[in-house]
């Protein structure tokens, strides 16, 4: 479904990603771990087409299509979704109206507010949010937990083929983490894929990845199954740095 081939990325001429290779098949959950500054968030932005980052080498394929050069909105319409670590606040635009516009644009539909309210119902229940929540301005004054719930609500409604979750667990208390993880699990099925980017193992208690990858200094240095996360948790990244050398 998603294939990253030998990807090199810079920001302001500073190299961040230095040859990333990754392949995610349909129905798979992959966790990407790594220390601060290793390039995990950069990878998530690049996958979604953020204009700030410059791809100097390599390619990204989505369902066999080379998407290295295409716009973020086209990627969204192909079925890609980025769950932001720090979702942007947009004043004066309600979460509901925004998501309706997004839904219509991605699915090339023109459904009304009334119909969309129906679509939203179950998903709102799943994330435990009230009507009031979706009427609020997009992310404005949201707590950390509310922002993440908002992101997963969007994911649930838009039903993307691949979701890139950028540190969705950071800043969540244990209750919110459970709700958010449960939401992700409900959306996840054999037809879609997830790339879960995280610092910590704790979210992996709720979401079970098939593969765990470790990124250090702009490269995936180690891949394995769930056990790799345990090893990291015990020994830290420094241990791994030694091991890789």
């Amino acid at each position, binding site marked *: 479904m998603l294939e990253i081939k030998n990807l090199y990325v810079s920001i302001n001429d500073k190299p961040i990603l230095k040859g990333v290779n990754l392949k995610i098949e349909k129905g798979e959950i992959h966790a990407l771990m790594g220390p601060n500054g290793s390039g995990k968030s950069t990878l998530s932005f690049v996958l979604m087409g953020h204009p*700030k980052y410059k791809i100097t080498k390599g390619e990204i394929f989505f369902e066999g299509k080379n998407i290295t050069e295409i716009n973020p*909105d086209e990627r969204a319409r192909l079925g890609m979704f980025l769950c932001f670590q720090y979702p942007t606040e*947009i004043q004066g635009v309600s979460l509901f109206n925004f998501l309706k516009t997004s839904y219509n*644009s991605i699915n090339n539909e023109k459904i009304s507010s009334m119909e969309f309210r129906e679509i939203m119902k179950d998903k709102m229940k799943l994330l435990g949010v009230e009507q009031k929540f979706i009427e609020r301005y997009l992310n404005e004054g949201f707590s950390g937990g509310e922002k993440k719930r908002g992101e997963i609500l969007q994911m649930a409604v838009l039903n993307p083929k691949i979701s890139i979750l950028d540190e969705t667990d950071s800043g969540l208390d244990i209750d919110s983490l459970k709700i958010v993880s449960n939401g992700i699990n409900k959306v996840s099925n054999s037809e879609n894929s997830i790339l879960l980017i995280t610092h910590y193992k704790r979210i992996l208690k709720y979401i079970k990845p098939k593969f765990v990858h470790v990124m250090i200094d702009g490269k995936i240095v180690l891949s394995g199954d769930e056990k790799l996360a345990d090893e990291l948790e015990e020994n830290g990244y420094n241990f791994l740095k030694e091991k890789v050398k």
Partner: protein
Amino acid sequence: MNNCTVNINNNYEEKYGWNVKIDSINETNIGLSENTINEISKIKNENKENKWINEFRLKSLKHFQERKMPTWGGNLSNINFNNIIYYKKFVDKKDNWNKLPIKIKETFDKLGIPEAEKNILAGTSAQFDSEIVYHKIREDLKKQGVIFVDPDEGLQKYPHIFKKYFGTVVPYSDNKFAALNSAVFSGGSFIYIPKNVEVKMPLQAYFRINSENIGQFERTLIIADEGSKVHYIEGCTASVYSKDSLHSAIVEIIALPNSHVRYTTLQNWSKNVYNLVTKRAVAYENAIVEWVDANIGSSLTMKYPSVIMKGEGAKADILSVAFAGKNQHQDTGAKVIHLASNTTSKITAKSVSKDGGKTTYRGKLYVPKKSDNVKSSVRCDALLLDEISKTDTYPYNNIENNNAVITHEATVGKIGEEELFYLRSRGLTEEMALNMIVTGFFDVFAKEIPLEYAIEFNRLIQLEMIGAVG
């Protein structure tokens, strides 16, 4: 970029900017003189019992001629007062759309006025160049004593109220354009809401400029008696011409104790119109005055809705939004004069500039020493959509009383890359994302006006946003 500009004009022209050819029944010769004034007075039958109004006009003309052009604000140097037709009338006023000449009826049909009247309005008037051509108020309001007529009828039928308040809030000598309006005013509204009467649905006046080279000088006087409540809405559009038109109005509001007046404006003149308007209210004890003012059209607008707080406990809320595109300057703002203690005011100004357009916020706040416990908050936000557009802020605060609580916040912003990326990552094209951000920026205005108008307002903004993606 050129294509986009043409596109905008075409859109305006198609939706609002067409004109109809129709013969006038009265019009003054081009230019302005005592003769012009006397002619207007004659047509309006002001020469007998209402001779005073003709004298008022002549006095105002003299002041206009003597008064220098303002040297602040926008560029007024291209206005040629000799090239303007000051009065043009096409038909006597009707209270049935079907009795109007078909071309005039069709104009207002196309603008959706009879439709709005049916759905949400308590009273409707429509002005075509210099005169009101259609006027109607719901019967039940009439029975309650609500007066909603044009100034000519107000003067003739209700001379005592008219004379008592006319020109008391905005004197003819207030500024050069107030003097001009006082000299040649025609059309507009005269409204009186009796004590404790609440008009639940809005009254609306719609102003249409159809002819080339015309000046429109309507005059609105609203008196809200004690404990009454009214919402007045005005909308306007104009035919597109290569030559300039001039719109110079005066609005006076008298909000008597405990009354509540809201005045909403959706200004959408074509881009050949100079829009130079004086709007002012006086608020007595515990009265509430709200100006809700949007300026989207015109080449230059200079307009600063004001409230003079004369009674204790009065409240003023002024919301002013502006959109300036190519070759437009929106010089807008607000003034509040706190002449009484325990008065509160809130000013919110929001502007967007695009394609080299310019917005200016000009505000004045005055709290004299004698006014205790005054509260005022001012917030101005400007959004620039590109590098060539401009915005300025001129807040003049004169606070003589130390216990006044005044807050002022101003921001100038550009649309951030992160905001755009967030929206685009959700499948919105760059154009949709920009539209959404700008619409959201103005939401504070849209949610203050009736839904039908909010939809219209958002549509106008989207029309202005065409071509925003470079």
